[in-house]
């Protein structure tokens, strides 16, 4: 899922400083699950903004709603009335949600209240970590099912660098060395020989480096 984190309050307050009535739109899918932009976070942000603005003697009126998904026309259309009733929208969805609103309501100002951080999973309650870089050219079959593209700080494809120590990455002692994980897993699977193969330079053109991406499925089009 997409994992995000609320922006610092001051940054949000600065964005909306000139507005007197805004609409905070949450999203009920990924960012709700990672507790960054679901209905609970919308109500808390709303309350905090109101208090901050009261303190400045510049009260603000805030409408709130959290559609099931902010990245689908069908769900964002439900927001039309509230959007039109306000001067601007503060979106607590990921960057996709923000842009869905922008595209659907071209005349409306939409601000992001959340930093879209990564594609990952909740490791445990309250802890999320990155798993996929959406490189468009999956290598998990060659690396024991562990992604070196995003889980290795240097995206190495042919084994760990010299900074792997005690199973941790030199960049951050809290982060596992992806190549240690890959090595351990391939060892368990009895497939260490896989690591002697030299993986050639990766074709990054399927990733962001190839420019904005698009998938068209003729069989699915209406």
């Amino acid at each position, binding site marked *: 899922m997409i994992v995000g984190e609320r922006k610092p309050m001051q940054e949000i307050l600065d964005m909306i400083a000139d507005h007197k009535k805004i609409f905070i739109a949450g999203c009920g899918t990924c960012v709700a699950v990672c507790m960054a932009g679901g209905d609970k976070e919308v109500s808390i942000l709303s309350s905090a903004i109101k208090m901050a603005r009261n303190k400045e003697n510049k009260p603000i009126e805030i409408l709130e709603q959290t559609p099931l998904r902010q990245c689908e026309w069908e769900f964002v259309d439900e927001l039309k009335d509230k959007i039109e009733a306000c001067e601007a929208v503060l979106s607590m969805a990921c960057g996709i949600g923000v842009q869905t609103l922008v595209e659907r309501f071209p005349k409306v100002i939409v601000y992001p209240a959340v930093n879209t951080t990564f594609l990952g999973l909740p490791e445990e309650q309250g802890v999320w970590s990155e798993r996929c870089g959406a490189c468009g050219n999956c290598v998990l079959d060659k690396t024991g099912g562990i992604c070196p593209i995003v889980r290795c700080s240097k995206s190495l494809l042919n084994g760990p660098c010299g900074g792997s120590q005690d199973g941790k990455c030199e960049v951050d002692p809290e982060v596992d060395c992806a190549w240690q994980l890959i090595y351990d897993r391939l060892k368990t699977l009895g497939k260490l020989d896989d690591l002697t193969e*030299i993986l050639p330079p990766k074709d990054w053109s399927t990733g962001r480096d190839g420019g904005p991406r698009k998938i068209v499925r003729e069989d699915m089009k209406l």
Partner: protein
Amino acid sequence: MKSGSNLEKILCAGHFAVTAELGPPKSVSAEVVYKKAETLKGYADAVNITDCQTAIVRMSSIAAGSMLASRGIEPIIQMTCRDRNRIAIQSDLLGASALGVKNLLCLTGDHQKFGNHPQSKNVFDLDSIQLIKMVKDMRDEKKFQCGEEIKVEPHFFIGAAENPFSEPFEFRVLRLAKKVKAGIDFVQTQVVYNVEKFSKWMEMVRELGLHEKVFILAGVAPLKSAGMAKYMKNNVPGMDVPDKIVERMTVAGKEKAKEEGVNICIDIIDQVKEIKGVAGVHIMAIEWEEIVPEIVEKAGLLPRP
């Protein structure tokens, strides 16, 4: 001869090689480069020029290397994957070769987090092994990475680094084997303080016969103080400084610390020289280049061939 470099000649002739390391300045000062280079002249067969080591902006390795070459000191250009994609790397290598650079060390590169621009974007289009293969293909197949032909190809003596002390330990030799397969001619190791562990690693190297395929230069570095020893032991990932070394530095006291650091370095050179498969030493005395002549002399490695 693959490159015709001095280093290649010395190693192929079976001499025990000595390489040193030179960190270019964080400025345009050519003087600093020449001064450091002159101290190394006649004491090292070739000199590594670091490529923005620890991700700190410094004068370009190729530029400084070319300056060295102009004074008759052979450079080993270091090239990392951190700052350049395959286009920039190949372009720079064409330029380096045209400037007369003959030795190249292929590195992954330190992460920018440790440098002076931790907010920068990194590249890592290639990893060090892919870089090695690319350079070898440029030389031996006359081909760019994309497969296009190079009319006049670069001739590098290709090196790599390897760290016998980082983990997973068992994979370290396999990784060297991968680099050999990718096309290196020589390897310089991470600084050796733990000779015992290094010997064990060399044993594994010999089991795979890698010492017969590439020249292995053991990395050494003189310690300056007990504090430095402790810092490296505890804070530098991939560095293995045994307690007895820290103790020797501590016992020596502040005044004699540098002297003891040199003694330890010479002891280690003496020991690694005796290990089968070790073809030379690489002395890393960054910002202490002037000590290299003393070490080379006391280790009995003079005169250079």
